[in-house]
Each structure stands twice: as C-alpha cells, then as structure tokens.
C-alpha cells in the first residue's frame, strides 16, 4: 500500500519511494526523513482528499496526494 492509503493514527514502515517522484524530489524527501525503513504515522486526513498530515522522526509534514501515493509502505 501507499502513504495515501493510510488511515488516521495508523503507523507504517516506508518500503520504497517510487521512481515517478523523480530523483530530485526523492532525494529531498529522504533529506526530510522519508527514508526507506523509517516509521511514519498518519496524524490527520483532510476532507475532500486534501493533503494528509504525517509525523516522521522529529517532524510533522503535510503532503498532497501526488506525493503520498508514490511513497510505498508496510503497515505494522
């Protein structure tokens, strides 16, 4: 599944960043903490398929669908 499929309060482990993101965005995401193997928690979903809010390591980020659906993870 992908980050976009997560429900509020669910936690998962990042498996892969899809190639569709491109190397530049993928690199930036890793620098922001979205690395393979890291735990990520969904804090909030917005109405109307708006951006979701996640906590990863020491930061909280908001991501839109086009990014979130390209981050693959495993629910634990």
């Amino acid at each position, binding site marked *: 599944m992908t980050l976009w499929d997560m429900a509020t309060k669910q936690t998962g482990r990042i498996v892969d960043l899809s190639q569709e993101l491109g190397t530049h965005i993928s*690199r930036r995401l890793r620098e922001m903490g979205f690395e393979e193997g890291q735990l990520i928690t969904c804090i909030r979903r917005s109405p109307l398929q708006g951006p979701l809010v996640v906590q990863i390591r020491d930061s909280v980020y*908001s991501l*839109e669908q086009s990014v979130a659906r390209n981050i693959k993870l495993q629910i634990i």
Partner: protein
Amino acid sequence: MNRIILVGKPNSGKSLLFNQLTGLRQKVANFPGVTVELKTGQFADYEVVDFPGAYSLKTLSKDEEIAIEKLHAAMQDEKTTVIACILDATRLERSLTFGLQVQALAKKQNKALVFVLNMVDELQSFDHHIDEKQLSEQLGSPVYAISAKTLLGINELKDGLKHIASHAHDYLPLKGTDSSLDVLKQSRDLAQQFAIQADLVLKKQNRIDSFLLNSVFGGLAFLVIMFLLFQSIFTWAAPIMDAVEFAIGWLAQKITTSMEPGILPDFINGALFGGLGSFLVFVPQIMVLTLVIGLLEDSGYLARAALICHKPLSYFGLSGRSFIPYLSGHACAIPAILSARTIESPRKRLITMMTIPLMSCSARLPVYALLIAVLIPEKSYLGGLVNLQGIAFFALYMFGILMALMVSLVVNKFKANDDKLDDMPFILELPAYRLPHWKPLFQKVLNSGKHFVRRAAPIIFMVTIAIWILGYFPQSDEGLQASWLGQLGQWIEPVFEPLGLDWRYGIAIIMSFLAREVFVGALGTLFGIEGADENISGLAANIQADGLTFGAGMGLLLFYVVALQCVATVATLKAETGSRKIAWGLFVAYGLLAYLLAFVTVRLF
C-alpha cells in the same frame, strides 16, 4: 570587513539570532524574480550575512538554486571567516541533515565552522539536556547551546564567534562527509544519542493542530482569522493612511502658499505632492499587512492556512499558499504580490501574482460606489436585511475572484509544458506553534515599506508627471476639456463609443490608469461637480440625468473589475516576476479583456 555567515534549516530561529547579533540596523538584498533575500548586518568588527533557510544543499527550484549559488560563492570568498550553522535543538535530526552537508562544504573550502544549538530553553522545559561538549566532539566542530529568544548563552556565543573568527585556522572542521547516505545515517545516529524524544516535543503542536485543523472548528477558526486579517488592512491602516494623506497635503500647502501663483506651485501641488501622495498613502497599508502576515507566519499558522486551502485551490492550478495573497489583494494588489513570496512553487507563485490584480482592491471601491449609485436602485428586501446595492457590490467582488480563478485555469493549461517554470509538489513542514518575537517582525515591516517605495516610486513618478503635463497644458478657461488630455479624449472617443461611452468617460478612464480612484474625481471635474470624491450622490444624480444607459454602465463596472489600471501594480509585477514582458503583457491583456467584456455587456442589455 571580514564576514560571518548564518545558515540553517527553515524555522530554526535564524532570523531572530541574526537580529540579536546585529541589532536593528540591516540591509536587505533582493534578486529580481525570485524570493531569495540576503540580510546583512554588523556584529563587532564583522559583517554578518543571513542566508535563507534551507533543507538541503541539493536544490529543487530556481529560488533554491540562487540561494545555494550565493552560499557557495560566499564560502569561496576569502573574506568569509566563519560559518555559523544554526540547529533547532527540538528537531535535531532534521537540522543536522543540512548542518552536516554544510560542514562538508566548509571542510572542502577550508572555512571555520561552528554549530549553534538554538532553542535549548524549550528542551529545558522538558527537562532534557544536550551535552554540547560530547556533541561537539562527535561532530568535530564547536557547538554553542543558546536560546535566541531568552538570550541564554548568547554572550558565550558572541565571545566564541569573535575568538573563532580571529583564530579561524584552528576551527576548520575535522570531520565532514560528502556522501548523502552517510549524512542521513550520521544525523540519525546523533539524534538517537542526543535528541529529545520527538513525541514529547510534538505533543503540544499536535494538540493545537487537532483543533485548528479540525474540519469543523478548524474551518471556523480559519474564517475568523482571515476576517480579522481583512479587517486589519482596512480599519487599522485607515487612520494611518489618512494621516499620511493629511501630512502630504499640509506640507504641499506650506510650501506653495509662500510662492507666487503660477505653474511652479501648481506643479508642486498637483504633480509632485499629488503623485507622491497617491502612492505614499499605500505604505501604511502595506506595512500593516506585512505585520499581520508576519504574525501568522512566525506563529506557525500560515502553514496550516495553506494546508486548509490547498485542495480547493489546486483545482485551478494554484497552491494553498495562494490564499493569503488573494485575500490581501482585496486591500491592495501591491502587498498581495509581495506576499506571494511565501508560495514554494515558482510556477504557482507566478500564476498567483498574475491573477492578483483581478481582486477588487480598495482603490476600486469609490468607482464601484459611484456607478452602483447611478445604476442600481436603492431597494431593500426582507425588512432591510438584503440590500440591492449591497448585492451588486458583492457580485462585483465575486466576479473578480471568478475571473482570477478562470485566468489561473487558462494560464495553467497554457504553461503546462513550460520547463523553465519548476513546479514543486506540496510538501510542507508544519512548524511548532511559537509566540512571534517583535524584533524580526519589526524588521520585516520596516523593510516592506522601504522595499515598496524604492521599487514603485520611479515609475509612478514619471507617469504622474506625464499625466499632469497633459492635463495642465495648454492653459485656458475651459479647463481640462481644452487640455491635451481633453483633446486626446475627444480624439480617442471612437474607441469608447462601442462601449456606449462618450469622451468624458474616455478621459476619466485614461486618467484612472494612474490610480483607479482618480476616475471619480476626473468625472466630477468634467461634470462640473466640485469635490466629487466626497460627494458621490451629487455626481451620481448628474450622470443619471445625463443619460448613461444601463448596459453601458454595467459594462463600465465590469471594465473596472478586470482592467489593470494601476502603474504601481505593473511596477511591482515587473520587479517581482523579473519580467517586463509579463508585467506589461498583463496590462495589455487585462485591458483588452475588460474592453471585450464591456463591449459584450452593452449589447446584452
């Protein structure tokens, strides 16, 4: 003068530290078309340069590219002696990712580097302590633990910076890895060893978010905050704007009364002070708006507002961060265009800036008021709850917003394959909620005023003088009608005829390219009503008696919603987009669109 440069992740408190080191005197360098801002100040015998906050040395957009290019250049410059890298102690891992990249670069360039661990006061409130000696040992560079807010450890840092700057060779980084994988791993390891538990720090922020981002309460809070912002630009700024206007009028009178009547005092009064007044009057509004947006930004709410607005605006190719500029545009397009700087995606920023002039700014208000009084009967329904003229006002505002969204949609489609315009996906960090500190805010507000005057003054001045000369010469008893401007109006009457308007409206429209509200005063002069600005109803009755048709009047209203009749806005657009072509292209395009709309409207009614 030798130089110390400040770098760090966004929201690491860098600007506040810069202010604490340098005091309130600073210079800001801007670069056309991008949001990069380099602030320069003085600390002891050193020049301190504050670089924009960054997540990485590897860039995503043109803005970041320019900022990082400048950083590389500064690093190579032999005047640069110390690099101070600010770390947010509450987000140690993320701060270190960028910090370690900078350290590697400093090592390569043989520059002294010092880490400044900021916000340790927040750690103390959680009873957490970072052993800076050990951290320093592991990093291979000195570490100073401080709080830029409470000034904890600031004296030690100041002494340390002076010492390091004068013994730079002893403080070259011992470590520093170029590999990005190593950087990520190392920051993670160090965070595991030193950082406070993330859940502890994020608990407060997440609790406030569960209210402010809640679908019901969050929406309400959003509306209330935006309403206050909207109010502030009108009500708080109004008395200051009046004061500026009064002061300029007073000064003009003081200077001209001692002169012999003639061309010179008329010029000083009309062109010099009139022109000066017409744009200096916007400075307070710009500063108040900057203050309120600065408060929202520094408190952390701006990121949340962007999150709330992102989805609805994304349908039109805009970002969530386009909302504040759009809202501000209802006061004045100039600060609104400046506030578009917070939009992270260069492409969405451009589209936002291009469509801001369609928001009904306060300068259109007198024009709307006059024409609505002429065209729409003053009728109320539902016991005075609904007023027909009020509805007309509302409809005009909505029409402007609708046009802006439509234009965004079109430009977005049209520019879909423009490679020069990077589009960054919406990845937004939600920073901690913090009480804003007055020092950086004060600086921001002051700079916004200075920035506006420096950018817009020359062009406004030239246009004012040109229109004044056209309206003043050749002198005769018939006044404006016989002037070059009047002749011009009659000459171009055929242009306005298809809109059902005669030469008098033509002149008023041309004159209002200086500033829209001039329209009312100019029409007043042409219809022989003195003081038409204050006394709209007299002029309205005259225009009604003169027989302006409903269709022509409605067309004129729509013309004023769409046309970009404001040289100050064009000047700001040119400066902010870095493109003369875009600025004047919009001027022409919105002019043609406005004309077309008016043309169609006359035929519909």
